[in-house]
């Protein structure tokens, strides 16, 4: 049993604090992804857990032991590095066995464990090769193999897929997920790629500027983001943000956009948003809440707009249309609509039940 717990963990480099008192509980065998833009402190957190960076203040607990002062080798962790960090002068076998040799494990058992790991990762044929004779994907596997053979309590991944090309990245992503199902262990995985975070994580930790901004399941961070930052960071194409004010008219509550046009607020949300009247707000609409259907507008559940199409980006399965809505560029995701071009009118309904509303000043969700 080994979960990981961070208690008020902070990191300072000289006068600059890059991680500000983070609290996080990773449960036993849980797959947690730390995600955020570069420089948000996610790698630093991981390196503190690994023991490669000193912890300025706070405590890190693995299992039930505070490991602040333990050397990396005594923390019972394994790490996969972004650049793989394979020993270039050693064969794949030796790369895998190096850690076991250091632990003075008998040769027969080393061989057994290396071969078992090689089997899981399909690298049995390369055991006698040097890393430079391997492709990027194979190196990636070896790097994971080196972590597996040690049978650690916690796996740490530091952007392991960012050196691979797009296709291989998708493939390895699936393999990492399978691997976690085969080798049940606690995993902490760092990435800047929100797609990786969404697909791999049981829980996502969204970080920015050294703070944790939101922790939740992929579904939670996607559908219930707590701030403009999280809403904009998770999801591609990114959520549309439109400045607006909440006003009350004869038809009930509605959002007045900057060009004076209005979007209704569904009746079921009236109570929640009612107190925000006459304040500067930001409306958040995901690209997929726009539809072409002709569903009846009941109690303000739908809004109708008819914008003029700007840029069209066909993706095959979907097409992205960009247009101007009250001075803001908006992107919507549609099934591939044949024949629509720049300048055409695209009548749309907006599913207002799936709207997000943020405070323009605090950028927090309302």
């Amino acid at each position, binding site marked *: 049993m080994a979960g990981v717990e961070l208690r008020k963990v902070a990191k300072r480099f000289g006068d600059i604090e890059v991680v500000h008192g983070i609290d996080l509980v990773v449960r036993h065998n849980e797959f947690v992804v730390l995600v955020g833009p570069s420089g948000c402190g996610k790698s630093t957190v991981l390196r503190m857990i690994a*023991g490669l960076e000193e912890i300025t203040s706070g405590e890190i607990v693995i299992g039930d032991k505070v490991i602040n002062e333990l050397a990396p*080798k005594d923390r019972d962790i394994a790490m996969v*590095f972004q650049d793989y960090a394979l020993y270039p002068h050693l064969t794949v076998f030796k790369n895998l066995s190096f*850690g076991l040799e250091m632990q003075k494990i008998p040769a027969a058992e080393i061989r057994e464990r290396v071969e078992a790991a090689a089997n899981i990762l399909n690298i049995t044929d390369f055991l006698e090769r040097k890393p430079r004779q391997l492709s990027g994907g194979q190196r990636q596997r070896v790097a994971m193999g080196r972590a597996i053979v040690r049978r650690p309590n916690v796996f740490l991944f530091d952007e392991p897929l960012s050196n691979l090309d797009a296709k291989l990245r998708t493939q390895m992503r699936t393999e990492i997920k399978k691997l976690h199902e085969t080798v049940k262990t606690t995993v902490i995985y760092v990435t800047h790629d929100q797609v990786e975070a969404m697909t791999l994580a049981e829980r996502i930790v969204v970080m920015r500027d050294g703070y944790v901004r939101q922790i939740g399941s992929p579904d939670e961070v996607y559908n219930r983001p707590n701030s403009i930052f999280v809403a904009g960071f998770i999801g591609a194409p990114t959520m549309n943000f439109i400045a607006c004010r909440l006003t009350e008219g004869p038809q009930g509550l509605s959002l007045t956009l900057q060009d004076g046009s209005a979007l209704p607020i569904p009746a079921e949300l009236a109570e929640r948003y009612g107190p925000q009247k006459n304040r500067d707000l930001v409306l958040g609409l995901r690209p997929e809440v726009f539809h072409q259907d002709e569903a009846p507008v009941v109690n303000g559940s739908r809004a109708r707009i008819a914008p003029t199409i700007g840029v069209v980006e066909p993706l095959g399965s979907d097409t992205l249309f960009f247009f101007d809505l009250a001075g803001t560029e908006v992107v919507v995701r549609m099934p591939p609509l044949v024949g629509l071009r720049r300048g055409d009118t695209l009548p749309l309904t907006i599913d207002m039940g799936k709207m997000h509303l943020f405070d323009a000043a605090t950028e927090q969700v309302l």
Partner: protein
Amino acid sequence: MAFAIRRKRTRELLLIWFFLAPSLLIFLLYRIIPLLWNGVLSFEFWSPYKPAEFAGLYHYEEMLLYDDVFWQAFWNTAIFMASAPIGILIALLVAILVDTPIRGRNVYRTIVFMSYPVMTVAVGIIWQWLYNEKVGLFNYVLVSLGIVEQGIPFLETASLALPAVIVASIWQVLGFYMIILLTGLQNIQPSLYEAAAIDGANAWMRFRRITLPLLRPSIFLCFVIGIINSFTNFDLIYVMTDGGPSHATELLVTYIYRVAFKLAQFDYAAALTIVNFLFFVFLAWLANRLAGGEVGAVETG
């Protein structure tokens, strides 16, 4: 068609030879012909005053069987060469020190490297002063500390002269070794050390199992430079001791010079040169074999 292609090829070949010609000519005039003539000369009795006579292996016999000075110069050269690892070891320690993130590391690096661009003649003169029996720094320190009663004439004592010269030579090349090794050290990805630390390797193990193997190409390069240095260190010896006292610091190069230009025995000097040349070729071959394919151990790309 075929004719046109052949004409194009001929033109290309002509062009290639045309551009190669100047350097080939110089190479031929100053390398190949002298070497061949030197070979011929070593099998002759030759003097500026009378026609040459065929001598067979006379000079080689003389050298290998009867010439003690030759053997002394040979072994001195070998010792000089064998001192290269000491220099490399010191340079490695310095490189590791300079590679640690300490304040002012660039200053230290520059200071250590500064000895390298200094003219060898100047190095020789400086060290001659340092070793001086009456006014030298070393003797001043030794006498002041009461370790010795009187100054030691380092360069005039047969048993001390060679080590003294070797120390000066190591000092001179140390900065260059250090730069090569430092580059090698900095080419090792820091994540390798981190991976090894997580794998459970302590500092010594990381040095032995990661640093040393990955530095092998750099160390090998230093070694080659060291060997070449011991064969060509004519100027330093010439300035500091001129091969003395009583051939204690005589190297093959200084001995060849002495025999040819002071004793005017050009035929014998030619034979010495051939042996020197063969010795050098043998070492180059040996070094190449020892490096055996592993020279490119550092991963690229």
